[in-house]
């Protein structure tokens, strides 16, 4: 077993050997510019890009003409939100999203607010879920877009996308879903799920960093977008720039693997995840699950440990790579906005750890991580006077603390 053990598959994933193998020729002998259509290098590149488009479309039940390549999910999210808000400004300036979305959605919404849009931020329930009825209640005649993630990157909770999609369809509002964490983990079908726009990212599904895609529905209804990157008119004019051919080929292959291995892989990840969860809960008390008990990504486990501080815990299990909060925000010590939106108290939010299990995780690794974690939590709790009180059966809520705690 190789240390450190990587249990942070929601932050990023290694490139699968099969994906890399597909990409490598495009770094050397097949290095053409896909826009150099008039010569064979260019054709070859373009052909491979079109093949990748089909692989991606197949993974989400779309047609290849509906796939726009971007540099990743963040850019795709920006393009979807700003592109729709700009294009449909004459219909209205209202968007609906949730407080538990990724920063890429929230920060783009904040930007749109500065430009005169109005955004309704739905509050998720304690498991981070948004109910279709909340969406229904929030949609107004001037709502141009509902943007809700498929699977939460921190706590793994799955939104009821199909039902939300149906509400949006019924009320005639476009529906965008950030499926960055969902593709390859749960079945995604833009037709059955009534999705109009969807983004995905290669590096979350064993493809390379720096490439992603935006699905843009072409009929029933046809979605139009204002381009956010100008020049050259690549990608039906929606996204200019020389195509990252090897990256795109990698994304295509990653999507193909995600589609063909989805059932087996999610079953395997779920089993490992459940095993990890059961061990921790069995061997430690005072552990809280963040997220939904069943409607959750198979490879995600987000736990809070009473009487333990998250940073010390992470340092205590230094040969297990995990994350506290999402990778994109973990550079700051503020509690995660997702846990806050779920009303997880500040102390518990600070002691939360996300375990991400993926394609290359083994049972041996999970057991090693469980051993290390249990040991570290026990050690830290031994130093905690609060833990002592709690063990004596004192309800800490009834203690009158001195000073402003």
């Amino acid at each position, binding site marked *: 077993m190789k240390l450190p053990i990587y249990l*942070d598959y929601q932050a990023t994933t290694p490139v699968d050997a099969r994906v890399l193998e597909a990409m490598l020729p495009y770094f050397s002998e097949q290095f053409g510019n896909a*826009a150099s*259509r*008039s010569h064979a290098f260019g054709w070859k590149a373009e052909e491979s890009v079109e093949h990748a488009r089909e692989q991606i479309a197949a993974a989400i039940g779309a047609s290849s003409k509906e796939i726009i390549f971007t540099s*990743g999910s963040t850019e795709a999210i920006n393009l979807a939100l700003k592109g729709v808000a700009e294009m449909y400004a004459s219909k209205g300036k209202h968007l609906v999203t949730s407080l538990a979305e990724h920063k890429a959605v929230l920060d783009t919404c904040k930007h749109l607010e500065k430009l005169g849009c109005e955004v309704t931020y739905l509050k998720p329930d304690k498991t981070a879920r948004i109910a279709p009825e909340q969406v229904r209640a929030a949609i107004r005649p001037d709502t141009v877009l509902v943007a809700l993630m498929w699977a939460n990157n921190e706590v793994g909770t799955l939104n009821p996308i199909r039902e939300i999609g149906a509400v949006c369809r019924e009320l005639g509002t476009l529906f965008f879903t950030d499926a960055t964490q969902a593709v390859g983990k749960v079945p995604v079908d833009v037709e059955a799920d009534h999705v109009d726009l969807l983004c995905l990212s290669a590096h979350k599904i064993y493809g390379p960093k720096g490439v992603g895609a935006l699905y843009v529905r072409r009929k029933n209804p046809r979605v139009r977008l204002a381009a956010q*990157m100008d*020049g050259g008119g690549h990608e039906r004019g929606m996204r200019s720039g020389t195509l990252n051919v*090897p990256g795109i080929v990698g994304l295509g292959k990653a999507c193909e693997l995600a589609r063909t291995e989805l059932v087996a892989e999610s079953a395997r990840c779920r089993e490992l995840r459940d095993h990890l969860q059961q061990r921790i809960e069995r061997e430690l008390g005072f552990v809280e699950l963040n997220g939904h008990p069943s409607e959750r990504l198979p490879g995600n486990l987000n736990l809070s440990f009473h009487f333990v501080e998250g940073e010390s815990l992470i340092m205590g299990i230094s040969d297990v790579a995990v994350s506290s909060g999402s990778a*994109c925000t973990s*550079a700051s010590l503020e509690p995660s906005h997702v846990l806050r939106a779920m009303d997880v108290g500040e102390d518990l939010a600070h002691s939360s750890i996300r375990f991400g299990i993926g394609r290359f995780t083994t049972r041996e690794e999970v057991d090693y991580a469980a051993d290390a974690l249990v040991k570290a939590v026990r050690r830290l709790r031994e130093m905690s006077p609060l833990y002592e009180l709690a063990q004596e059966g004192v309800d800490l809520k009834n203690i009158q603390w001195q000073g402003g705690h």
Partner: protein
Amino acid sequence: MERIYLDHAATTPLAPEVRAAMEPFWSAEFGNPSSRHALGVRAARALELAREQVAQLLGVDGTQVVFTSGGTEANNLAVLGLARARAKRGRHVLIGPTEHPCVRDAARALLEEGFELETLRLDARGGLDLEHALSRLRPDTVLVAQMLVNNEFGTLYPVARLARLVRANAPQACVHVDAVQALGKVEVSLGELGAHSLALSAHKFHGPKGAGALVLERGLRPRPLVFGGDQEQGLRSGTENVAGLVGLGCAAALVAERLPRARANFAACRAELARELPRLAGAELLEPAGSEGVVPAIGSLLLPGPPAEVWQHHLEARGVFTSVGSACQAKKGGLSPALLALGLDEARAKRVLRLSFARETSPAEVRAGVEALCALAAELRAYA
């Protein structure tokens, strides 16, 4: 059949050293630079090293380098971002006469935001008309965007002189330089150009596609185009393309190391082209030298007879790869605005074929390319 690739202005193959540098970051060192565990920290460190390499090439500090997904994004970020950041001081924008669509179209998008846009002019020698530029500068000019090396016929523009004029006469304006075609062909330094920002793209100098950078004067902050996550000092959110940017860094280091040799080689290739071309009756090497000359890495030919496209296809059948206009133009099949700006009429503009060299291209390959052209001329005459 031996393959002779003479279209390096469209894209270049990855240098073996670059590929070797990138390799570990696909699968072994795959961390997310925002993660705080060891794997993430190592990815972040690799990114910082790459940033230093790019900074060093351009004579700036690492903090002045913003990584992007390529030249298009870097140019968009500069044009849209700098103009928007200065909109309160003025809304007048100037762009060069032969800008790449990613500068031109971005500037046009500003029209909808109430900006006024003017295009600079070429002078009779194909250079930048600085007198005209001076006459267009205004107190409310907030952006002047000018490419350093023309992507279609290689003219080197007097950007340093333009920047001095701008700084003296339009104090509110930023000078943005699209240096995408310049890196690896001429020496480029942000300070010596006197520019405020500069865009580059890895795949034009033997780095990977999908990686580029915007280099900024210290303290200058364009409005970001992409939000969420606050990577790259908040100027460009999104998980960084670690392997690609490591490749960019390595490619930049190679440029610094190999530029003198590369320049000598470009000159040899261009000399070979000039020497051999007279064998092809009616062909002419475009020399829009302006004040600074043409970079020898790009040679555009005005060919006799049929449109350049016909030559291109026949050349390809003989294993010689060239291009008509830029790759980004090729897709639309339109005429090159840059060639028209040069004063070529439509009929002549259609007959321009671009050859472009790499630091590894040999004069023998150029000669073989001209030989193919000559053989082809005989064949095409037979059809005439």
